[in-house]
């Protein structure tokens, strides 16, 4: 086998040729043939991983800063090696001119003058990102079917509708929203691929929604429909992209929001959840390909379709070793290195913060007004006690009646709280004050199981802060939506309860409700009974008269256990079934790292806010729905959360390892047609000094992953930038 230049102590500088195609028209059309820019000299090529485009900068040593070098904005640029045979050449970079950079300097005694005209080009990822936003949903509308809505409904081939107002969120809120039937995409009249599209989550027929897998998402994102740069980077069928056939892409990912991103960032967002990334490979037949690879998972030593990333060994000669043998063996000689193993960033005792505990309960409310504020008008044998809306319409001056004047929402001196404001009294606002005396503050320990409300010492884990009522966890059987906040009335001191249709809202400043109904007398007892006994004997029983009866009879509304109330309790009662958030949250601490597991001897913590992902929501036995068969959106993510936090610990408990390695030559393939190193490749060890870079993670070895390669042709050096190993770990 003929030794390559890499195997000689004396090497030749490798020449890079800059070729270009002028951008003609808008959007540009490019010639099929490349022109060579003989006067161009490559300054730097930066190959990047993931969504970040690669960048190349070249300049014209023989030209003035204002020279016309025939490179216009948008011109296509290719930088390649100079082998005779096309198949031997390596295309190091391909992209589009985005910057023309002119500068000059008049010089001083210490520094010579110069003029410079440089050009910067970015690769196709930039073009994809800049031209191809993703928003709205691709779905099927009524016109995408034959005989829509009838029993003979059938799909129209390749017909679809894009809806700009629907947000592109895969598996929104953890629910499936993929149409089980894919749609064909056409290009120039022929179907090039089939892609999944969105559908209604709540569909229950034979075409019920399915979950999107990561592969489905990427096929959707990268398809022809959203790829506005298709003429420059055609991806006819994204399913055929290298790496996408890996089983990892069959995973279902929930609530992936891509609305408002571009196709490249959207693809990266999906990959990030899987621990994958991608790069752009330039082929010497002019094609550019997105290649997906698993982070820090390289294990092969020869690149192939199934192993897009490989392991490398760099050679730093041992002390007193002659470099001759290593060079002749073709080892990648390490000329300079900066390598950092940092334990300061170790996190081996992460703490996860989940959502606040939420419980559904049923409890009685207390009146949020003073008894003295309600004065029943018993004049004219109770004729003025209340008026129905029909009665009021017959009155020429309803404000002449106290009922209307003070207690109707349109009254001239409307007392807005009386009869209408009811509170849980969770903060003690209506307790033992100079004005209110509605009994003890609400005790959450009465309704919430001890395991959630009491600490190890039996102390209640909440404080008398004001809260707000939230909708029930119990859901409607059909729509699966929350039942909302349910208010029930009692006119017999809580013996029986009834629902009365009325406008009621939740208070914004405390846990309570407000009755918005204009006329409280319209809230009529469902048995249509009358008041029995007392001043109001024989009067129709409704919410207002019931309150008046309590006041007229000097009944007491206090804590039910109080002796005063026990003797003479209010008949009018309200109870609410709702949910409420308390002062504790789902809190998870990881276990301590085992011996020699962590890169630091200290327990180092970091808070992780997962309050939108994990929580504890329970329907307590106090809830009036607890004995029903209605569905309930309960959750106890304790175990799942702990698993996640443990994964965070495993991923972060080792030292941060990052480095910058400079090789003594450019490794451009030496005639093989592809560069020796690619982003995503890993550095296994430094031979010569026998320094292993492997770290153990989840009982497997991982290695520093190359996330950036910088070619410096002027110096004939190549830099490899690796990233923190810990970031390579898949969280779940």
């Amino acid at each position: 086998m003929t030794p390559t230049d890499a195997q000689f102590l004396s090497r030749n500088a490798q020449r890079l040729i800059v070729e270009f195609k002028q951008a003609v028209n808008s959007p540009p059309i490019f010639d099929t043939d490349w022109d060579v820019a003989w006067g161009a000299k490559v300054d730097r090529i930066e190959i990047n991983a993931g969504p970040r485009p690669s960048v190349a900068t070249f300049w014209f040593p023989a030209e003035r800063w204002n020279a016309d070098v025939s490179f216009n904005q948008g011109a296509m640029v290719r930088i390649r090696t100079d082998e005779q045979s096309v198949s031997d050449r390596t295309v190091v970079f391909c992209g589009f001119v985005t910057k023309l950079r002119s500068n000059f300097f008049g010089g001083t005694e210490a520094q010579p003058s110069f003029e410079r005209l440089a050009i910067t080009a970015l690769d196709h990822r930039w073009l994809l990102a800049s031209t191809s936003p993703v928003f709205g949903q691709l779905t099927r509308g009524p016109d995408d079917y034959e005989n829509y809505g009838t029993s003979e409904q059938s799909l129209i081939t390749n017909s679809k509708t894009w809806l700009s107002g629907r947000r592109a969120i895969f598996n929104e809120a953890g629910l499936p929203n993929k149409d089980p039937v894919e749609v064909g995409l056409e290009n120039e009249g022929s179907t090039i691929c089939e892609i999944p599209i969105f559908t209604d989550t709540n569909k229950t027929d034979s075409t019920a929604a399915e979950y999107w897998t990561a592969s489905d998402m990427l096929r959707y994102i990268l398809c022809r429909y959203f790829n506005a740069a298709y003429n420059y980077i055609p991806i006819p069928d994204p399913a055929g992209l290298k790496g996408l056939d890996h089983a990892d892409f069959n995973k279902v990912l929930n609530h992936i929001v891509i609305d408002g991103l571009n196709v490249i960032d959207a693809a990266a967002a999906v990959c990030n959840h899987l621990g994958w990334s991608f790069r752009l490979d330039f082929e010497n037949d002019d094609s550019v390909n997105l290649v997906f690879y698993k982070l820090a998972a390289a294990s092969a030593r020869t690149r192939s379709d199934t192993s897009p990333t490989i392991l490398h060994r760099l050679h730093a000669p041992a002390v007193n070793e002659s470099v001759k043998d290593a060079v002749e063996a073709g080892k990648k000689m390490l000329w300079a290195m900066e390598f950092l193993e940092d334990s300061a960033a170790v996190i081996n005792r992460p703490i996860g913060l989940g959502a606040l505990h939420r419980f559904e309960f049923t409890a009685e409310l207390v009146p949020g007004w003073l008894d003295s504020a309600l004065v029943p008008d018993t004049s004219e044998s109770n004729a003025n006690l209340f008026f129905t809306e029909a009665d009021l319409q017959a009155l020429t001056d309803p404000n002449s009646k106290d009922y209307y004047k003070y207690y109707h929402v349109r009254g001239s001196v409307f007392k807005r709280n009386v009869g209408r404001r009811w509170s849980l009294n969770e903060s003690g606002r209506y307790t033992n004050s100079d004005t209110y005396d509605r009994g003890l503050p609400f005790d959450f320990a009465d309704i919430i199981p001890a395991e959630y409300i009491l600490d190890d010492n039996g102390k209640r884990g909440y404080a008398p802060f004001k809260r707000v009522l939230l909708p029930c966890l119990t859901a409607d059987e059909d729509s699966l939506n929350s039942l909302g906040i349910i208010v029930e009335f009692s006119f017999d001191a809580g013996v029986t309860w009834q629902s009365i249709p009325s406008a009621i809202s939740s208070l914004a400043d405390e846990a309570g409700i407000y009755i918005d109904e204009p006329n409280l007398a319209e809230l009529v007892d469902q048995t249509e009974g009358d008041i029995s006994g007392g001043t109001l004997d024989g009067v129709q029983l409704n919410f207002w008269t019931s309150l008046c009866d309590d006041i007229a009879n000097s009944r007491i509304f206090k804590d039910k256990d109080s002796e005063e109330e026990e003797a003479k309790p209010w008949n009018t009662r309200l109870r609410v079934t709702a949910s409420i958030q308390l002062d504790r949250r789902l809190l998870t601490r990881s276990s301590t790292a085992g011996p020699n597991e962590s890169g630091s001897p200290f327990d180092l913590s970091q808070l992780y806010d997962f309050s939108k992902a994990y929580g504890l929501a329970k329907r307590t036995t106090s809830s009036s729905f607890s004995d029903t068969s209605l569905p309930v959106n309960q959750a106890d993510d304790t175990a799942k959360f702990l698993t996640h936090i443990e994964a965070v610990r495993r991923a972060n408990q080792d030292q941060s390892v990052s480095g910058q390695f400079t090789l003594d030559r450019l490794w451009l393939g030496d005639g093989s047609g592809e560069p020796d190193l690619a982003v995503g490749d890993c550095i296994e060890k430094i031979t010569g000094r026998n320094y292993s870079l492997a770290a153990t993670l989840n009982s497997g070895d991982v290695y520093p992953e190359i996330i950036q390669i910088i070619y410096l042709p002027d110096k004939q050096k190549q830099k490899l930038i690796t990233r923190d190993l810990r970031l390579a770990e898949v969280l779940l």
Partner: protein
Amino acid sequence: MSTNLTTIFGNEIKVHLQPVIIDRQYSGFPGAHGLTAMHMGSRGYPLTVTGKLASSGVNYTAARAAVRAVIDGIEDYLFADAADYVFFGVTYYSVVWEKFQLLPDGTGKVFHYTSEGYCTADFIMLGRSLL
């Protein structure tokens, strides 16, 4: 089209073409013996023209001014693009001129008075053949 060097500098010149300059970069490795060398290419052939500029005039001042005019003409070549030059049948390709210097004698004088109405100046012109 080559320019004869005598038309620029006159006949009293000597022309030397030095061997090519090699640009080589060496990379060492800490603790190890040996280097790798990277041949970065050649940096052209140094071309040296030495000689004497001579002019005459009605008196020394006029002769000296005439030499000065010749020097001005030579200076223009310092700004010229690469061009081919010929001397005694030898062509020097793609030459750029980098430096022109008048050489003083032992007394520090540059313009020499030889006889009435006659002035000379010794010089060295450094150039580089790019190919």
